[in-house]
């Protein structure tokens, strides 16, 4: 048998070779250097501890082995993440949004900003954002996972808004604030204010008995799930709902399945409907655009009817508490860059839906003359929020005029994917050449 400490020393050298073989050279992204540096720092810190650990201290040796395993696992997952397997325009915008949420120390000039890598796995329900909670780290590394078969299905990707809510819970100060100002308010008066209340409710509703660690775990998880649903809705906007319902209906078609990790789906639908009503997105008073009203009704009406049929025992949260929690969460999100979804101008949205129905990606730019005597022209970039593109995409899906053969769900998804890509490219170009004219001799 190899002596454990010698074995770990050898494994640290192996990981150094692995790191040099993979992230240093072969990972093509410009960000690979950041991953390389972070993993190298982790490896150096672990190697230093392996050098000094007492050979007889098996608990420490086991713990170091576990950390070395985690690091090796992370490096290989990063190595195997291929951006070509997923919608990378969507991955980039979701990364920007997640960064705003989980920036650990604003004062640290972003040098400790977390790192994100993206991967795709098999299965429709593999959507995930894995927060690192046990690894030694300078910068946290998050793995965002998409279903491989959904490479272009960006309309469903809005479900990741819910998973980013879990990321927010990985930051202790933010979690503390969210628990106090949002989750506790949201669940006030419900059976989820204490483990004993939850236990009583579980016995009555599911004849399930949980106790000890299992009850404590279910209590924490259920509360977090409700919060993440509200979080997803507020950062992704209306397009969160059809994605959420599409996926959850396949997971739990009755909506009342017992799970120790998630509250009943029906109760979550009900809570989201209350939030939607409060936000006023459903009715959207005064909006009667040709390409908006009918698909809005077609999208929202079945949800409303479904929720109205949910039995009272599954309407667990008080609508007034949902309203208060929504307002509190909006206030918190307002200080996190552009994470809070803002409803679009109806004319703008109508234009995007029309473009999609015509089979073209939607971008919002024009070239116009500069002010003053100069005849030079410049690009006016009025970027469309990717969430408006996705909202428009869902409206196109629900539009009666959509020729389902010609404009399939797949094509709408691709058009939305392209729209996000084009918009990002134009914004990048526009920022880079902001002071430069497009051309000095563009004619009318």
């Amino acid at each position, binding site marked *: 048998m190899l002596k454990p400490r010698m074995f770990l020393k050898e494994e640290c050298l192996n990981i150094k070779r692995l790191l040099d073989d993979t992230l240093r050279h072969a990972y093509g992204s410009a960000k690979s250097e950041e991953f390389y*540096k972070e993993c*190298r*720092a*982790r490896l*150096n*810190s672990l190697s*230093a*501890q392996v050098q000094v*650990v007492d050979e007889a201290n098996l*608990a*420490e040796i*086991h*713990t*170091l082995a*576990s*950390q070395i*395993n*985690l690091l*090796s*696992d992370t490096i290989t997952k990063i190595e195997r993440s291929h951006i070509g397997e997923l919608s990378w325009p969507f991955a980039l915008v979701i990364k920007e949004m997640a960064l705003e949420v989980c920036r650990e120390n604003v004062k640290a000039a972003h040098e*400790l900003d977390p790192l994100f890598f993206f991967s795709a796995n098999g299965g429709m*329900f*593999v*959507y*995930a*954002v*894995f*927060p690192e*909670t*046990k690894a*030694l*780290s*300078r910068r946290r590394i998050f793995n965002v996972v998409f279903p491989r078969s959904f490479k272009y299905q960006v309309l469903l990707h809005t*479900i990741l808004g*819910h*998973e*980013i*809510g*879990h*990321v927010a*819970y*990985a930051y*202790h*100060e933010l*979690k*503390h604030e969210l628990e106090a100002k949002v989750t506790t308010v949201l669940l006030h008066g419900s059976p989820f204010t204490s483990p004993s209340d939850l236990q009583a409710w579980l016995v009555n509703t599911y004849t399930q008995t949980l106790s*000890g*660690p*299992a009850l*404590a*775990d279910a209590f*924490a*998880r259920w509360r*977090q799930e409700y919060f993440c649903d509200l979080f997803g809705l507020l950062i992704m906007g209306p397009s969160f709902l059809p994605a959420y319902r599409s*996926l959850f209906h396949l*997971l739990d078609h009755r909506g009342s399945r017992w*799970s*120790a*990790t*998630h509250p009943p789906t029906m109760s979550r639908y009900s809570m989201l409907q209350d939030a939607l009503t409060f936000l006023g997105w459903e009715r959207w008073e005064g909006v009667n655009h040709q390409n908006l009203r009918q698909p809005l009704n077609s999208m929202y009406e079945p949800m409303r009817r479904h929720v109205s049929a949910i039995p009272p025992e599954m309407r667990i949260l008080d609508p007034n508490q949902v309203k208060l929690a929504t307002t509190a969460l909006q206030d918190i999100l307002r200080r996190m860059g552009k994470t809070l979804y803002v409803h679009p101008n109806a004319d703008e949205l109508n234009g995007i839906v029309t473009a999609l129905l015509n089979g073209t990606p939607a971008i919002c730019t024009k070239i116009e003359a500069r002010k003053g005597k100069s005849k030079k022209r410049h690009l006016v970039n009025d970027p469309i929020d990717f969430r408006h593109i996705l909202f428009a995409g869902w409206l196109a899906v629900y539009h009666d005029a959509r020729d389902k053969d010609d404009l399939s769900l797949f094509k709408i998804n691709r058009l939305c994917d392209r729209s996000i890509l084009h918009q990002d490219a134009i914004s990048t170009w526009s920022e880079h050449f902001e002071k430069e004219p497009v051309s000095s001799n563009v004619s009318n």
Partner: protein
Amino acid sequence: MLVAESNQQGEMRVLYGILARAAMERFGKVPKEETESRDIYFLGILRLLDMYRFDSIKSGAPVGILETPTFHPDYLASEQEDQGAIENALASTHASMRPNQTDKNAFVEEVKAALENVHKRGAGASTSARAIAKEFLEGLIQELKRSK
């Protein structure tokens, strides 16, 4: 369960013991090639202090997966026991360092400031910062050992 996810009983408390000891050993000036490791040790302890301050040691790790698996009760029991031991070790260190100060926030602020001073300035850190950081780390190491 993946090997990397396995959780030997008390693994996190052992890890924090390693971190605290490693931070203690790096109070002075350190070679340039060790600055990243030093960052990791100190940041690990600073994050632990925030967990203590915000009562989030025992509340479980977030799991951002759409279809979350159910964890085995033995795994949950072991993990919660580990978390409880870490929280108790911090509370005991707090009580022994500042017996009259019940405010977690004030205690954490004081210790974090001292640790950050030592982390950033190394041998140039103030004497009082070094003393507070040393007392905290030594106390934490002792309490974590006692909980095994």
